């Protein structure tokens, strides 16, 4: 099996950003079966809606400015309700960060899988964003690693590889990343220079 843990939507709160419409009624019926409480909102969400567990939004009549967060930075899974498959509308729905969609007219199927797919994708996107932020931090610290390697070579390591190995050992001993260990070593140097 895949090894990822399925999220179960029972008990969630959903916001539906859509004008009254039979498709919205069908969506609410499906959500009720899943024990997901739904509230319909139009024309825009407010700050309190940011606490919802999932947002379904109209991709046909939707526009920027309906959400209290910047485009693509929704704090919850976003599911587009798509009637017109015009590329402009799909692009706009994607720009809002939707990770799943339902085609209108909505009947009696589709909501459960859309919820699971959107929630899973949202979780993956969040995790990847965290990873990227972490890697960017490490990249930012790369010059410190170079400086620390040069310093260790100055202190007697025979070459770059040996200095890098020593830096890695120091990081493990101090239980920090190589970048953090390098910054600490360089900070000592800066400190020593200032002391001098």
């Amino acid at each position: 099996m895949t090894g990822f843990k399925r999220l179960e939507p029972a008990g969630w709160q959903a916001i539906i950003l859509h004008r009254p419409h039979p498709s919205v009624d069908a969506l609410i019926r499906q959500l009720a079966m899943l024990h997901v409480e739904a509230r319909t909102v139009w024309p825009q969400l407010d700050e309190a809606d940011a606490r919802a567990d999932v947002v379904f939004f109209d991709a046909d009549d939707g526009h920027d400015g309906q959400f209290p967060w910047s485009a693509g930075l929704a704090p919850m899974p976003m599911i587009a309700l798509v009637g017109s498959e015009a590329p402009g509308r799909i692009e706009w729905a994607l720009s809002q960060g939707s990770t799943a969609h339902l085609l209108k007219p909505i009947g009696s199927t589709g909501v459960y899988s859309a919820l699971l797919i959107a929630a899973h994708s949202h979780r993956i996107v969040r995790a990847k964003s965290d990873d990227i932020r972490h890697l960017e931090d490490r990249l930012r610290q790369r010059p410190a690693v170079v400086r620390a390697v040069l310093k260790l070579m100055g202190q007697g390591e025979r070459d770059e590889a040996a200095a890098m190995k020593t830096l890695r050992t120091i990081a493990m001993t101090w239980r920090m990343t190589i970048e953090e260990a390098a910054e600490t070593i360089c900070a000592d140097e800066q400190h020593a220079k200032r002391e001098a």
Partner: protein
Amino acid sequence: MSSNIPAYPVSVLFSAAGPYAGLGREAVAGALAGIAEINASPTLSLRLRPVIADPRGEDRRYAELAEGAIRDGSRHVVGALTSSARKEIVPVVERHDALLWYAFPYEGYESSQHALYFGACPNQHLLPLFDYLLPRQGVRPFVVGSNYIWGWEIARIARELVEARGGALSADRYLPLGHIDCDHLIAEIRQKKPDFILSNLVGESLHAFIRAYHSLGLEDDAFRPENCPVVSCNMTDFDLSAVGAAAAGHITVSTYLHELDTADNRAFKARMTERLGEGHAISSCFAAAYSAVLVLGTAMAEAGSDDPAAVREIVTARRFATPLGDLRVDPRNHHADLTPHLARAGADGCFHVLEQSSGPVAADPYLAGLAARAALTPHPADLPIEASQARKLRVVK
């Protein structure tokens, strides 16, 4: 027959050939018995005209034959035993605004507005079965199933249920529909020594497996049904009649049992004896198809038309007395409230009640209700009682 009584065609779509033909023939017989009763009723002023077609167990044929029947005037399809067949018919009835009457246990996760579900979903079969079984038998089942969505999803739910109680599946293994070579399964079961076997095998595969497992029990007491039973959500009286005494001691959960002692069932059996003759045990397949047709005919007569929307509204608005009980169909999810009966196969070829049922259970097809969520949430305080104390399953008939 009076000429001003309307006659409506009804598509009857079961496989009387192929890997689960025996069950299909039971379902056709049940549906036709229901139609005959509706047509003979002095109080219902309509006639149903069965339009029988046989997909011979080939999934894609279900869609073609349903499409043809609807094109020829049927607005209701009573049909499909397996989930893979049902999934073929549902898009057809949705496209043509017709109604599917489905009457067999399935894995849930569906709720079409164009289908009515008279078969149990997991909170009406597997959950009550495991509620009873896990504390008594242990939490390491070996799962065998037919290789399609029924087998896969029931194994998945079983895994989550036993893991919530601190257990694990001993293994889950699959046979293609119709395959009867079980030797490798039997060898693995012997080696793994599970607490019990959950079978999601269908038709001939189930029969072959039960026979092979019976032989294993004759060689090794550890695999006799009183020690390591086969339990199932889809083993019917028909399967017992096919397998004979080799099935004795194994356990099923079913919404109908021949021996149920209710007024409705006594009257039903008496009528069926008149129709079929003495000595026919009524299978749950037969009773379920019969019950669905009974509700269909009664609601159609009340609607004065075969308009699916009008019929659906009546079906979901009141109760119907059937051999499955006094049925209510939930207007939100189109599933019937059903009573799960736990039963053990006797040497007489019949299932006998293991524990009195606590009554009808509303369907929760997405396992999203409180009871299902509680069953699927880890509850280590409720770990199984010692297997040694639990080995003996007691008949409380």
